[in-house]
């Protein structure tokens, strides 16, 4: 049963309001970032701020159009849109000229589009379509495989465009999958991978020749042991066994300390023996108690150790030198303010120099004098930090948080799986962009060149994010059409 409702009443005005505020703040920031002390000109359409104004104007048209279109069209054409997006991505790989080291721009006469922006909402729609099939549950290999393929295919194509940053954005859909039933332990395992990687890279890569003080290895082992005990608690609730295994570890450490009083022997050998014994014991428990979690935890332990050993190899052999450099700079292992760390260092200087109140509109010297590279695109937040200081930065972060939480709230309130899956996809993508971009500018995340939604200069990204959002707003507006 359907009932017609007025879009203007049903649409979520708070979100639209936040969207408008973010876009306006974004434009002011771009204006500030591209302002030239020598040639101040307010509305010059040759300048970035002027051009962005044209993009914003065209977005008004896009928004209205998207709100007018019948929402069912997305359900019907989801796969078609997805296929079209893939074709565009392939065309881009084949025909795009190389601009700034990446081939992500499809040039059609005077228009240049970044096709990855289309792929984002297209993938969101396709996932929503697939996962809203009758009786779909995110369980079993048969259901996971198509979902993963839907995500990985555009991701791989974007990687071919040498746009590693944009490709990573597709990982954001795993947040949506988590909401749709993917076990949380998988997210945690992903987190473990990152943490182990950081520990091994930062604290020493001498795992294969352990010395008495190979801190990295010892930290990694302790991390694995604690995770192992944590898993035992969450998945078996068997406090007795946790106590036994924990005491076992303590016993081994005491022996290691005593032995080291007599002759120095690497603690790592003792810990390795202890972990080996724990794996044997867990396997035995699994058979004894006829419970699967024990053997899975044993497997996790083995896998984690293997991963820790291979991270070093992964780092030195798989990653490109410039990527290694970026990671090392991020982890504080390399201090090279003019080389790999230049962007982040200048970005921190720009933001830090804003202090509490900021320098005021158009008074930011670091951004105006172009100390910060990519300051109107990826590093646009520097302008906010420098000219509006702490209060301005916190205001923007707060507004984003409100925006994200609102979208989360809206995604959850959907009555149809299609809208909900799409909605969660939208939240995930915005969150990923926000978290990585700001983290990068603040020197907390690696330098992955992805834009800050609505702030960064660029027509493709503004259009892409606007379409992504307004499709969802339209879906949300019609959530009450279907009565159940």
């Amino acid at each position, binding site marked *: 049963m359907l009932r017609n409702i007025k879009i203007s009443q049903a649409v979520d005005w708070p979100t639209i309001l936040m969207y408008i505020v973010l876009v306006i703040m974004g434009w002011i920031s771009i204006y500030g970032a591209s302002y030239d002390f020598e040639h101040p000109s307010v509305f010059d359409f040759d300048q970035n701020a002027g051009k962005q104004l044209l993009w914003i104007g065209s977005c008004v048209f896009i928004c209205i159009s998207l709100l007018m279109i019948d929402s069912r069209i997305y359900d019907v054409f989801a796969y078609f849109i997805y296929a079209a997006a893939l074709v565009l991505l392939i065309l881009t790989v084949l025909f795009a000229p190389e601009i700034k080291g990446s081939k992500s721009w499809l040039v059609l006469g005077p228009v240049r589009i970044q096709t990855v922006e289309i792929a984002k909402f297209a993938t969101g729609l396709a996932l929503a379509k697939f996962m809203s099939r009758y009786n779909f549950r995110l369980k079993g290999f048969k259901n996971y495989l198509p979902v993963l393929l839907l995500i990985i295919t555009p991701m791989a194509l974007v990687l071919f465009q040498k746009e590693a940053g944009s490709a990573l954005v597709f990982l954001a859909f795993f947040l949506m999958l*988590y909401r749709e039933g993917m076990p949380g332990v998988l997210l945690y395992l992903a987190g473990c991978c990152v943490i182990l990687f950081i520990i091994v890279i930062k604290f020493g890569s001498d795992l294969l020749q352990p010395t008495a003080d190979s801190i990295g290895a010892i930290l990694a082992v302790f991390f694995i042991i604690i995770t192992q005990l944590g898993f035992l608690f969450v998945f078996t609730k068997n406090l007795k066994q946790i106590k036994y295994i924990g005491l076992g570890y303590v016993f081994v450490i005491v022996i290691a300390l005593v032995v080291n009083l007599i002759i120095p022997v690497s603690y790592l050998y003792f810990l390795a023996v202890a972990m080996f014994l724990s794996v044997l014991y867990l396997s035995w428990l699994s058979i004894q108690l006829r419970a699967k979690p024990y053997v899975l935890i044993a497997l996790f332990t083995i896998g984690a150790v293997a991963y820790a050993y291979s991270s070093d190899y992964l780092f030195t052999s798989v990653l490109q030198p410039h990527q290694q450099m970026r990671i090392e700079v991020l982890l504080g292992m390399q201090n090279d303010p003019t080389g790999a760390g230049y962007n982040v260092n200048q970005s921190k200087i720009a933001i830090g120099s804003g202090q509490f109140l900021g320098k005021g509109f158009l008074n930011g010297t670091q951004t105006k*004098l172009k*100390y910060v590279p990519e300051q109107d695109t990826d590093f646009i937040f520097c302008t906010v930090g420098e000219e509006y200081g702490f209060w301005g930065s916190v205001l923007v972060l707060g507004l984003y948080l409100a925006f994200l939480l609102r979208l989360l709230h809206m995604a959850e309130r959907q009555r149809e799986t299609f809208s909900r899956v799409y909605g969660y996809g939208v939240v995930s993508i915005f969150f990923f962009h926000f978290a990585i971009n700001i983290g990068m500018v603040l020197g907390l995340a690696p330098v992955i060149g992805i834009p800050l939604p609505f702030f960064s200069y660029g027509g493709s990204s503004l259009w892409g994010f606007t379409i992504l959002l307004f499709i969802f707003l339209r879906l949300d507006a019609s959530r009450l059409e279907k009565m159940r």
Partner: protein
Amino acid sequence: MIDKHLQNRKSVLAGIMMIIVVIYVLQLINLQIFNPTYKEHADSNAFLNKTQYPARGLMYDRNEKLLVYNKPAYDIMVVLNEVEPFDTVDFCKAVNLSVPFFKSLINKLPKDKGYSYIPQLLLSQLSVEEYAVLQEKLFKFPGFYIQNRTLREYTYPCAAHALGSVGEVSKTNIEADDYYRSGDYAGMNGVEKHYEKELRGKKGVEILLRDYRGRIKGKYEEGEMDIDPISGKNLTLSLDIDLQMYGEQLMQGKVGSVVAIEPATGEILAMVSSPSFNPSDLVGRQRTKNFRALNNDPIKPLLDRPLMARYPPGSTFKVVNSLIFKEEEIITPATRFSCNNGFVAGRLRVGCHHHPNNLDLVGSIQHSCNAYYCHGLRAMLDNKKYGSTENAFTVWKDAVVSFGFGYKLGVDFPNENRGYIPNAEVYNKIYGKGSWRALTVISIAIGQGEVISTPIQTANLAAAIANRGYWYPPHIVKHIEGGKIDSMYYKKRHTVVDPKHFDSTIEGMRMAVVAGTARVAAIDSVEVCGKTGTAQNPHGKDHSIFMAFAPKDNPKIAIAVFVENAGFGATWAGPIASLMMEKYLKGSINPKRKYLEDRMLNTNLMPSAKKH
């Protein structure tokens, strides 16, 4: 299909978002609130503080003749990371340098990253002519800039010691005064140093914006935050430059000093240190080379003799003793002491030149009788009324000090020597307490022995006598434009001797010129009062000393002349002092005395000396 368990995952996601935002806010607090270094770093990134050097204050003489002024000079600055490949030979030709030397200059610059975008001094003090050649070509050499500076220029090639010179500040200067930055100039000696704070003015700053490639992008806030430099204050010196120049000419070929003071004010009229040099020699790029040459000269032309040379005052000191003895009522002007070609006490004998015997006070000064003062000193130091020789000596010493001896006079120069007047303690140490008498220290009666004075202290003595009992600390700056000279220069310093005792002493000095040892100093129609002196010099020929003032009533000039290794005071110092006074008081030299002037001008008493 509603799954409660999965709905809760919304909260997990919301929690992650909030945690991330909190982490970012914490990082913002760290960057923006707790870490001022980012602000400093940003400022040093973006602002180029270009120093605007003020013009240094000018100096005029007492007749408003310009003595010291500024001429423009140009420093070449280089910003290393803006330099592009250029024609080195062409550049070196333009600035008149050899290519290897230029390369060594470039290599000497610090190459750290922090310096590469800062303008650094490459070559200092190009002349206007050199600058003109370079300026036309400058566009061909990106990264090279010109910084305007000023150098000192002198109207007259004299008074080098008094005026002082300006040089680049040392590390010690920078540490002592945070006004200075490396490469700044400051007064190094003379008036330039003592009045540095008045002369230097205040540096200004022009704040320029510099982009990430070091290019200048205009003025910050349209120059509103710039600070204009404030020019240094002009000084009017008490020096009479014509007299000074004449003095330097008279002293040519001689080692010594001339100091002339206006008794009524303490203003220094002339201050000659010989040998001297042209002050322009210590300006600009030649400074280092010339300074080294002067510094290595064995005759020490850099020594500021009027303030720093230490001599026994010799017979000029007798007038001090004559005044003290009268004040202490040891003698009256009528007191006579016998002189048998000297002073004899047991085995001790102080010789005297041939002169009439049994002189009174006026005669003793007129003929410079040694015996008279030995008797006088003995009568004072061995006088029972003081209780002991030590006490008597202390009274004597305090009286001597009240004439400006033994301590710095407080002149407005940085390098004054205090001379030396011993106290009783010194003799106690040498001879033992209570075991010395007047005869032990008898040579101080005639200005020999332990007493040491500087030329300016002797000139000051002349002024104190001319004033009949008081003096002003001698000083060379008469007026500071828009400022005040130190009030101590207006404060009368009285000697312990009552003015009434001065008449007979002055009469003695007058008679010395009329019919005594100082006849050579007589000037037509001017009542000159003078006293010759000869300072014993253990290293060679005695030093010739003359001290005088004129006219006797209402004196206009007091003078002291020291000529080293020149023998009797009357031979060299006397004529020079006399010519100086005549020049000052009458404007020109009487033709009758032309022969004397010529002899003074043309005699070289140091044939081996290098001429400067």
